[in-house]
């Protein structure tokens, strides 16, 4: 088992390398010279050249063939922008923002909890709505409830998330005034940082009002972000439950006089959990990384919005470091989900 996990983790190395190559190349394709962007259009050519040298921009992109031919040393061959980038990643240095000079790795770490909190909110929505809806639909197959759940999940996956977000803001924030339209906390409310997870932090410090404020801010974005996973989870639960409910041991449990409630929730759902866990795990990866649209609409100060703004501002180091960070989280989570099958299903053996 641990050998299997180790092998999967080692298998990630070439993928991570390829990801950095792709990100690096795409960022270099974005038009505009960072040195000119930093110094402004009216900077002297000498100043620009000095900065380019400082940022390694005067070196070749991938392989320094000229230096290699000159000296014949392999060390000179990799004296290029890409390998400098790779080297600094390995040291945990993702560079600094061109405009604000803020350290990309530090800022990502500061913004990660916001995105994580949002993703957890989205998954909770999916579990709390999706699983019961799927179970009810499966138990009363072809009933009105089943039709409602099935068509709702059909529309759920078809809904543009940005459109749904706007609709939620309009209905619950603007029209009814029940919930705040954007941000993580109301102006004037602040919570001393312990972990960066606002709800957790305020609860730890006994600031109930602040915790409630943070929860109220989370509801709408979590609903918007959770729509697609809710639809998928409901569909998956329905399918898995239908399969399980038709099996012999469920009939036996009924035959020996257990109540329908107990059979459904204790016996059947437990065995239908594996595909549901898979969907939830994979969704969590995509929620954590795919929240760009939701964060933009709800002005949520997470990683996705930061990277999106940086793309607009042509702040390469943020785009480069942030995208790589997000993609790395995504592959690691998907690998963990893959590995966790073995824990949940003893029948699966990995050699």
């Amino acid at each position, binding site marked *: 088992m641990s050998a299997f996990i180790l092998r999967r983790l080692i298998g990630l190395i070439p993928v991570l390398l390829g990801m950095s190559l792709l990100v690096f190349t795409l960022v270099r394709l974005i038009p505009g010279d960072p040195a000119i962007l930093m110094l402004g259009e009216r900077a002297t050519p000498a100043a620009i050249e000095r900065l380019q040298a400082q940022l390694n921009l005067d070196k070749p992109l991938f392989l320094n063939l000229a230096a290699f031919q000159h000296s014949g040393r392999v060390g000179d061959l990799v004296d290029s922008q890409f390998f400098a980038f790779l080297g600094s990643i390995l040291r945990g240095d993702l560079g600094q923002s061109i405009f604000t000079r803020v350290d990309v790795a530090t800022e990502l770490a500061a913004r990660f909890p916001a995105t994580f909190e949002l993703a957890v909110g989205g998954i909770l929505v999916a579990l709390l709505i999706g699983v019961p809806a799927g179970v009810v639909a499966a138990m009363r197959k072809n009933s009105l409830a089943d039709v409602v759940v099935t068509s709702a999940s059909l529309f759920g996956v078809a809904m543009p998330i*940005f459109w749904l977000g*706007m*609709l939620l803001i309009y209905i619950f924030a603007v029209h009814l005034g029940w919930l705040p339209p954007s941000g993580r906390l109301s102006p004037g409310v602040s919570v001393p940082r312990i972990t960066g997870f606002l709800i957790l932090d305020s609860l730890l410090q006994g600031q109930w009002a602040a915790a409630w404020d943070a929860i109220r801010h989370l509801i709408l974005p979590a609903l918007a972000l959770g729509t697609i996973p809710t639809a998928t989870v409901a569909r998956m639960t329905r399918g898995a439950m239908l399969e399980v409910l038709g099996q012999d041991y469920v009939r036996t449990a009924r035959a020996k006089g257990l109540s329908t409630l107990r059979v459904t929730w204790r016996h059947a759902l437990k065995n239908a959990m594996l595909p549901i866990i898979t969907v939830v795990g994979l969704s969590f990866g995509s929620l954590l990384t795919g929240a760009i649209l939701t964060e933009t609409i709800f002005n949520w100060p997470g990683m996705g919005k930061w990277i999106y703004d940086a793309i607009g501002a042509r702040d390469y180091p943020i785009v480069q470091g942030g995208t790589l960070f997000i*993609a790395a989280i995504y592959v690691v989570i998907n690998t963990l989900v893959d590995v966790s099958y073995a824990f949940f299903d003893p029948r699966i053996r990995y050699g």
Partner: protein
Amino acid sequence: MAVNDHALEGVQPQPVAGHLPKSRSPWAQAWRRFRRSRSGMVGLAMVGFLVVMSLLAPIIAPYDPSTDRNLRARLNPPSWEHPMGTDELGRDILNRVWHGTGISLRVGLLAVSIGLVIGSFLGLLAGYLGRWVDTMIGWLTDILLAFPSVLLAIFIVAAMGPGIFNTIIAVGVVQIPIYTRLTRSMVLSLREQEWVLATQALGAGHLRTLFRHILPNGLTPVIVQATLSLGTAILDAAALGFLGLGAQPPAPEWGLMIARGFAYFAVAPWISLFPGLAIIFAVVAFNLLGDGLRDALDPRANR
């Protein structure tokens, strides 16, 4: 008995279909199964409606979608004259949504074609050639799949510049790995089958085996996936349009229209509401059609 004799002698190969009593062509059988699928028929009708509407838009739609403005009729709520209301420049929303149908369908179709052609080709190569080709293509696929699709699409458009053409490419590239995986696994399972060995024993070359024998037989899951991908592609393209990276104003693209209506949402929600409903309609249409096609084309899934 006659059948067995032929098989034993192996002299006169006869088409398999000839032995079946009153057989229909595979397509006729598939159509029969498809007609029984309610979701498939609903999806087909919805897609048909979209296609007809997009073809009719330039002919019978009453206004030009971007130039016919009426500043005296700005932000009008839905009425008999303007069933979906008017936008901030006094343009008829119904008319713009109608013209937008063609944009979304074209973007979806072209993007999916890019993903399908490149992805399937890579998948065929990987599955058929195996060895280092498979390793390399598998590596590329893993890398592309490691990026959340919207982020990758945004990234590509940022590198190439905003616009509808680059949106098509970005959304298409995002779809490539899906088809690579699908086609590869299809080739792997078909390659080992006896009739493939037989065609090779009869002297068929690699290309002939691959494109005449393996590809047509494994097309079913690819067709189903392509239909479902059309919905995803339309959604992704709309997201890029919404972020200002896709179609540019004054194009009547649905995502862009939603974004433009954002500023007026409190006073004129219909500007964003109807393009959103149009997106949902289109995506649901292709998802239903894809479900129906799966039921019809894959007899094993039809229980």
